[in-house]
């Protein structure tokens, strides 16, 4: 009850439709946000706040409800239940006004493949009724920002996947949005292209733009996100900074021991005392512990001789798999 009251107060700090968002306040406030398609509930009563100037991540396996959530926040998809305020406005009542102030990078590129890079940017700017001359200036700046100056006259169809992605991001920035929503921005890109994108996103954050990003790359989330939530089956199953999540849902270190495919399960029962948690995978046994080296030594003391062993720090991936399970989601 008290929690609901506190949230109400947060909401009420936002002025009504078309009002100025509070500096340093929240850019997105979702309470009991729900999306259903017929009987299927894609997003099931989720609550979250995105603060101005932060990078906020949504992690989750395919089908967890990330994209449905993004589409609601972008005012592309009406909410089925709950409340959603974006940039201080109600998402249902002020869709066009909200979309005028946010940039969307959809999961699938929606570029016009038959037009040039420059024309794609220019025309998109004109959707926002930005005056011609102003759009032209912004297009030149964004071509540089996206490393696409030399490709400006090329048809989009001829670009690589990484270039198209950069163009999509540049396009989302043409209206100088306060909030940019990126739905799996780096899926399918090679490492060079991903690192370039991360760099650009980091620059945006430094300029004070708030970012919401969905991904299933854990390294991406650890690199970029100030705070994130893990979604699974339409619900938020954990939230916090990457470090907080690792502390709350995993141990400091993980020791990975390989005993051979047939042996792993057999030795696992002897290892349960050595770690806070033991997980048996087909190819290896994972010991979740504060001190991985100590656990490996202790295993040797028990007379166990793994074929290979590796000690590493816990990562967001461990948290993710712990929370959402290892089985494939289809």
């Amino acid at each position: 009850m008290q929690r609901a009251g506190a949230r109400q107060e947060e909401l009420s700090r936002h002025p009504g439709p078309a009002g100025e968002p509070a500096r340093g306040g929240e850019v997105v406030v979702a309470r009991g946000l729900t999306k259903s398609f017929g009987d299927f509930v894609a997003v099931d009563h989720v609550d979250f706040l995105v603060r101005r100037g932060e990078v906020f991540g949504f992690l989750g396996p395919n089908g967890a409800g990330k994209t449905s959530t993004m589409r609601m926040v972008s005012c592309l998809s009406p909410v089925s239940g709950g409340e959603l305020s974006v940039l201080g406005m109600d998402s249902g009542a002020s869709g066009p006004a909200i979309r005028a102030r946010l940039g969307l990078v959809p999961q699938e590129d929606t570029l016009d493949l038959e037009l040039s890079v420059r024309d794609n940017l220019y025309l998109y700017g004109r959707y926002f009724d930005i005056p011609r001359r102003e759009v032209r200036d912004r297009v030149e700046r964004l071509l540089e920002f996206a490393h696409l100056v030399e490709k400006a006259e090329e048809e989009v169809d001829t670009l690589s996947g990484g270039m198209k992605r950069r163009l999509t991001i540049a396009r989302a920035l043409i209206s100088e949005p306060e909030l940019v929503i990126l739905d799996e921005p780096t899926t399918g890109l090679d490492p060079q292209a991903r690192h370039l994108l991360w760099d650009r996103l980091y620059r945006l954050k430094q300029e004070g733009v708030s970012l919401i990003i969905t991904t299933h790359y854990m390294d991406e989330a650890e690199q970029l996100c100030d705070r994130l939530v893990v979604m699974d089956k339409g619900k938020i199953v954990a939230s916090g900074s990457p470090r907080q999540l690792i502390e709350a849902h995993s141990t400091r270190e993980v020791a990975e021991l390989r005993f051979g495919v047939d042996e792993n399960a057999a030795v696992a029962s002897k290892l349960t005392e050595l770690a806070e948690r033991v997980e048996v995978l087909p190819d290896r046994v994972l010991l979740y512990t504060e001190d991985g080296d100590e656990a490996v030594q202790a295993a040797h003391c028990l007379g166990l001789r793994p074929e290979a062993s590796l000690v590493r720090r816990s990562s967001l991936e461990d948290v993710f798999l712990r929370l959402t399970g290892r089985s494939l989601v289809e």
Partner: protein
Amino acid sequence: MTLGPVGARPAIFRPGWLRPYRYFAFRYKRTWRGTVTSSILYPVLYLVAMGLGLGHLVNEHLQAAHQTGRLGGVGYVQFLAPGLLVASAMQWGTNESMYPVMGGLKWLKTYHALLATPVEVRDLVHGHLAWVATRVGGASALFLTVLAIFGDVVSPLGVLALLVAVLTGLAFAAPVTAFTATQENDAALPVLYRLGTVPLFLFSGTFFPISQLPGWLQVVARATPLYHGVTLARSLVLGRVPVVDDLGHAAYLFVMLGVGLVLARRSFSRRLIV
């Protein structure tokens, strides 16, 4: 560079349909030469073939039988020309609302890109139809010019046939747009063309007066939209002052456009707002 909080806020209170319209117009710059050429060539080819070939035969036949009144007292090509103008407008309106709409919805996904901006579904539908009106208007103007050069526009009232052509094109474009937006793929589009557009093209009084048809088919023909457009344009091109009948023809087309518009907005919303 500043990519931070908004500098100049875009004006979001201009007519919404202009935004998608500008995009369609810009895209057209890539293909306008081809469409202008075919818009001129198409009527020229028809007029030459029908005028030199079929037209001669028909005229001779009617004169021999002292029945020139059956074509309203004009030669075959003068009879045909306004019908062809409006039937072509129907085809342009229909074509612009089939593959280009499917492309925007599904193949290029340009509609999805548009809707991520302040553009709303209603703006998109209106912008699309405004663009169709422009395309049909442009092509019809060229068509009418060719007819005038060939001496087939008998009356100055014929200029008004341009409006009839645009109205007819839109009256078809709106429901076809609605239909395309209900389709998952383009399989039904050629069927719509073959079973819808082609029979209308042939049996709505374009090539011959529908009085040539058996009685029950005349009733069917009178119920079809193209008949009303063709008849209206013909009376204008041949210099008949509009009468009550003509208002009825126009009203039919306006109602069809209105119903189509409502359906198009609905099917676009269902398709795009999920």
